[in-house]
């Protein structure tokens, strides 16, 4: 692909490594039965959404231009730390265990709390006085 910045890719790779390791570490320490509320994925997705919104807003609106912070922390770390595919497979698994209500509630609560976490992070960054 033309115009690919190798250092940007390196930053994404480094962030991706840390994000994947952090997610797997949490998932292994916080296991829940197949057909019950997936706490690990839920906590990971909500904390990661908060972190991404905080970092993205801070970098765009508060801090001086930086080329590699967003790819490292945002695209790399938060992108790899949070996961859409695991959430969907969990919904399928809960669905196949015939717990349809739980499947729907898990999906909708993830989105509602995820959006709230984003809003909260953006609001916090914007309300904080710039000291520099």
């Amino acid at each position: 692909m033309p115009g690919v910045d190798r250092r940007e890719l390196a930053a994404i790779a480094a962030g991706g490594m840390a994000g994947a390791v952090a997610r797997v570490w949490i998932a292994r320490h916080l296991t829940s039965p197949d057909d019950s509320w997936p706490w690990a994925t839920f906590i990971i997705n909500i904390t990661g959404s908060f972190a991404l919104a905080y970092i993205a807003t801070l970098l765009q609106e508060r801090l001086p231009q930086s080329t590699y912070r967003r790819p490292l922390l945002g695209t790399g770390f938060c992108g790899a730390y949070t996961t859409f595919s695991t959430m969907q497979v969990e919904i399928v698994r809960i669905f196949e265990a015939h717990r349809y209500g739980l499947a729907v509630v898990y999906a909708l609560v993830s989105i509602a709390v995820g959006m709230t976490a984003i809003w909260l992070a953006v609001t916090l960054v914007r309300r904080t006085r710039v000291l520099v």
Partner: protein
Amino acid sequence: MSDWVWLAVAAVGAVGAIARFLLDSLIAEHAGRDFPYGTFTVNITGALILGFLTGSGLEGNALLIAGTATIGSFTTFSTWMLESHRLAEDEEYLRSLLNLAASLVWGFAAALVGHTIGTHA
């Protein structure tokens, strides 16, 4: 979990993140940035693949590395949320809602189809 498994998780985590970035950039370049088609495509594709892998009966470290680590890093929940929020901030409420609903419905369908194919393959 042994050290080599953690090393593998880190390595494929990097691959997943880079693959996401490249595919997202490529799609955004062609489809435009009015709607987050890039993240949408990445997430639906990843849900299909992970559904297939879990359905195929892959277990233990193989599933952890190929599925949880690689596809888990490839797909992203946080960017999906952030992009939906940005659309709403730009007063593109319908697009924001569409991004949330379409990703959820298509992601579920993709994971279910992948899982079914994996189970019968």
